[in-house]
């Protein structure tokens, strides 16, 4: 059988989710943000909740998330997505409400909003993209930057004596009573993509069961900020990020 005969709607096994529109995404080639957008679209399509889902977009490279997924969105000031999501979910409790935030947004300027929304047990989902730096502004050091990791503001590598330790938000948030689910995943292999999809779906389901806040951290690459190819970034992430930010569930109140 030749290729022309195989390419037939009857034989379709995978295609782009229709929740994601055809607008080309502004992300750099290979950026993890794209994979996570795609997963959100697939989950929303599979759960059939396109008209019941509201995302809150951050400041950071994810700022234009609202252009690519055809759901309702609100864009928040830097770090304030959890506060905005709180208001939306309280006013519209029948909607699935999630924030989409980078580490500069969730773990630096927005730390207070993150902690208090989690502590209050808001029934929202945090999609937390941790690439260890401020991607959008040119790769500066973030609270999450690894010890010894080079960035534009730590050109010799992060010095823990001077600049402190890497901030592990998931480890911190799991201790809050308002939080029902904390998991750390990645999207660099087929297996990890599938696991992340299951994790996000579970978080969405928990939010509608009024169990409290869910945090899905996705340890990600920023090949432009890290100054490596996308494939090398994946290897670097496995070798350097995973020992500090270990994969797996940190909390799950079933």
């Amino acid at each position, binding site marked *: *059988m030749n*290729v022309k*005969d*195989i*390419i*037939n709607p009857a*034989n*379709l*096994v*995978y*295609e*782009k*989710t229709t929740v*994601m529109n*055809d607008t*080309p*995404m502004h*992300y*750099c*080639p*290979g*950026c*993890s*943000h*794209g*994979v996570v957008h*795609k997963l959100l*679209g697939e989950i929303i399509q599979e759960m059939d909740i396109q008209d019941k889902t509201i995302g809150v977009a951050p400041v950071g490279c994810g700022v234009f998330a609202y252009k690519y997924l055809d759901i309702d969105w609100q864009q928040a000031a830097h770090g304030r997505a959890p506060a905005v999501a709180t208001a939306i979910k309280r006013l519209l409790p029948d909607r699935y409400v999630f924030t989409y935030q980078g580490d500069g947004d969730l773990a630096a300027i927005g730390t207070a909003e993150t902690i208090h929304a989690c502590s209050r047990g808001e029934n929202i989902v945090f999609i937390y993209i941790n690439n260890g730096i401020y991607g959008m502004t040119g790769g500066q050091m973030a609270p999450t930057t690894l010890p010894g990791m080079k960035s534009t503001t730590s050109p010799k590598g992060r010095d823990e004596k001077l600049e402190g330790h890497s901030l592990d938000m998931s480890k911190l948030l799991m201790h809050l009573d308002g939080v029902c689910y904390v998991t750390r995943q990645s*999207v*660099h*292999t*087929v297996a990890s*993509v*599938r696991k992340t999809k299951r994790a996000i779906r579970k978080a969405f389901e928990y939010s509608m069961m009024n169990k409290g806040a869910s945090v899905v951290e996705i340890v990600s690459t920023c090949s432009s900020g890290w100054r490596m*190819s*996308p*494939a090398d970034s*994946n290897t670097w992430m496995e070798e350097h990020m995973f020992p500090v930010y270990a994969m797996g569930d940190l909390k799950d109140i079933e």
Partner: protein
Amino acid sequence: MAKLKGAIVVNTERCKGCDLCVVACPSEVLALSNDANSKGYNFSFMEREDNCTGCAACANVCPDACITVYRVKL
């Protein structure tokens, strides 16, 4: 056991030539083209199409949702 045979279609205009599908393909089907799309990216294509099993590994890791996968049982 039934043999699986697959084929993919790349949205070449959407593709950014990131190479992640090429690396992810377990059957070494894919490569980046010498041709570029209108944005200047060398897009992905099936260089060894006979090897494709339709496993969709490439499509799952593609950050830009460029790949459609088809599969038949022979």
